[in-house]
């Protein structure tokens, strides 16, 4: 299984599962981050410490700790 940390800038993916406590899960949900959702990686900060994701029509930033908790699968570009 891979998580967001393993993706690169510009990659698109789909959220498979979130391994977090109840509060964090609810928090992420209120930002539109929950299983089934597709996203795109817009940017990483230095050392991949933080990520900027596009989810739906909004941009959300996460820290490495949160990236590790989100299981994803990569969506390969259609050729």
């Amino acid at each position: 299984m891979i998580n967001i940390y393993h993706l690169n800038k510009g990659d698109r993916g789909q959220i498979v599962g979130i391994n977090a406590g109840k509060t964090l899960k609810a928090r992420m949900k209120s930002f539109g981050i929950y299983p089934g959702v597709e996203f795109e990686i817009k940017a990483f900060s230095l050392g991949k410490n933080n990520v900027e994701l596009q989810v739906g029509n909004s941009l959300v930033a996460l820290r490495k700790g949160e990236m590790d908790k989100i299981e994803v699968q990569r969506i390969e570009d259609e050729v």
Partner: protein
Amino acid sequence: MQKIVVALAGQPNVGKSSLINAISDAKLKVGNFSGVTVDKTEIEFKYCDEVSCQDYDIHIIDLPGAYSLNEYTIEEKVTKKFIEHEDYNLIVNVIDATNLERNLLLTAELLETGKKMVIALNMMDEAEKENIHIDSKQLSDILGVPVIETSASDKRGIEALKHAIVEVFQKPKTGSKILYSDVIEEEISTIVNFFQEKKFPCLIPHEKVAVKLLKEDKEIYKKLHDEPIWIELLPIIRASLQHIYIHYGTKDLDEIFEDERLAFARGAAREVQQIEHKKEKTITEKIDDILINKYFGIPIFLFLMWGLFQLTFELGAIPMDYIDMFFTALGDSAKNIFGQGELGSLISDGMISGVGAVIMFLPNILILFLGIALLETTGYMSRVSFLLDGFFHKFGLHGKSFIPLVTGFGCSVPAYMAARTLKNEKDRLLTLFIIGFMSCGARLPIYVLFTSAFFAKDVAGNMLFLIYIAGALLGLGAAKVLNILVFKGEDEPFVMEMPKYRLPSFKLLWHTVYSQAKMYLQKAGTFILAASVLVWFASNYPKYPQLQQEYQNKIEQAKTKTQKTELENQLESKLLENSYLGQIGKATEPFFAPLGLDWKLSVALEAGLAAKEVVVSTLGVLYSLGSVDETSNTLKTQIQKNIPLPTAISFIVFVMIYLPCFAASAVFTREAGGVKYLVYLFIFTTSTAWVLSFIAYKIAGVFLT
């Protein structure tokens, strides 16, 4: 005239503040929600309903932005508490048309409360630009409440919104509805049917009661518990919950209802909106490509910060001088009016100079907060945290801590206030605790005096730089230590929206800066006035008429002018030595003795608790030099003569770390949320200062003597 109280709720960055600022002829009130440092804005305006010819007095309370009512942040707690417990007539829910699905999640929660509601579908102009088409009529049908299309920038829908507020207010009931999945709807109707069969009277619709029962809402259980109906209701609820548990495979009702709302929001959004995707990048994406670029992002930010601080402290210094001149003149004229005696001294040296010191910071605060408000309203602030979070997180801080910390190099007062941008309690407290380590401008004269007294001119500058850097590093170290020892436990997660870049509105900027300035003057002003009177008293009392008389005679007999001033200075020094402040200094001498500090330096440090500017002038008085500043050569020579280098180093280290000043302490107390935090800060900084001074003194003693 009837009064309508409106709770304005919405997610962050949906343009709530801009929207209420767009309502013209409204009276604005700013303040805090009780007990917390969350800004509260209230507006008030009159509205005349042309149909019924009735006048209404509409109060709108702008609630803090909340992504949901989860109580995750202080803002969300305040909003939830208000929505659930305060007395108001209806909710206006502002939603961002460009982000419908996520916004409807909060709407669903608000609908569940069963309160009357109006929806302001805001930012319609932006949605149109992004080719997002929303059928607001259909949305209104789905939600059962009026949906008004609005836009703060072109003032669209403002009148319609006012009208809708009054219309909904006049209606006896709300038509709001939220459609759950079939499983839940079935259980709701079972409960509702039961209520109807029993003809159970109820203030809120039966559907809402049923939903609350299924959500295990404590209050509704408490209320129904004492009703005779309870005995029959109980088995019905139990059966319903069982059905739900089996269907969802979990007994976590919070999660079940979260998912229900999510599905509702998604469903509603898909039904009413059409998005034509464009291939080219949006403006936000284009700007982000530059501003949060891995390599250019940080340099661009540092440049912007440099500019802001130049403006704050260079431009701010101009009015500061005038304010200083004004208050000095005012003090002098007060002495002329009230005489040179006690009253004149109290008013001039105590009150006027104290208040003057507070107002002096106002230009700095205004400029800095204008800058910060610009960073926040344009959406850049979130990018700053994104860029710097990696570094600051290593010390247990947050990316946004950077701004208050750097501001601390200028002045701690605005720095403590700037910490408000940190929304998380732990992040904010930790930042507040270490701001003092960033040496503020008022400490500079002390450093200049001591470095120039002990070091050659070309080295002195480097020493000065070293002092500042050492302070900053100590601060980061202290953050790490506090994070491990005091603010333990798991890290607060970092999940943050990066809002779209927006042009700031002048009205909104003005509003932010105005409310900050007002609060600063109100709170800090009253406290500091009292404190400065106290310091004035401690350094002027008790009086020694005999001693004064003795010196007066000597001065009169003195032949030359130099002798006269020398005697005057001696008198001043003797008076200060015997004042309460001097007595405290002498009494606390044993505390400072291990650091190599004598009573004179102790008094200077204690006077420095009032303001760091006082340290140098106090030293001047104690060394019988009259009024001096850090450039005074005589004071430099006196210090060189009387203070050994290890003692001087110990003194500097102490100055670097201990409490900044009264003004800062007052602001700190307010921002941290209680006097107890000031006590903690005092103990923490003083003990750190003592220990490090002690170490510095001993090490310097070994190497330098």
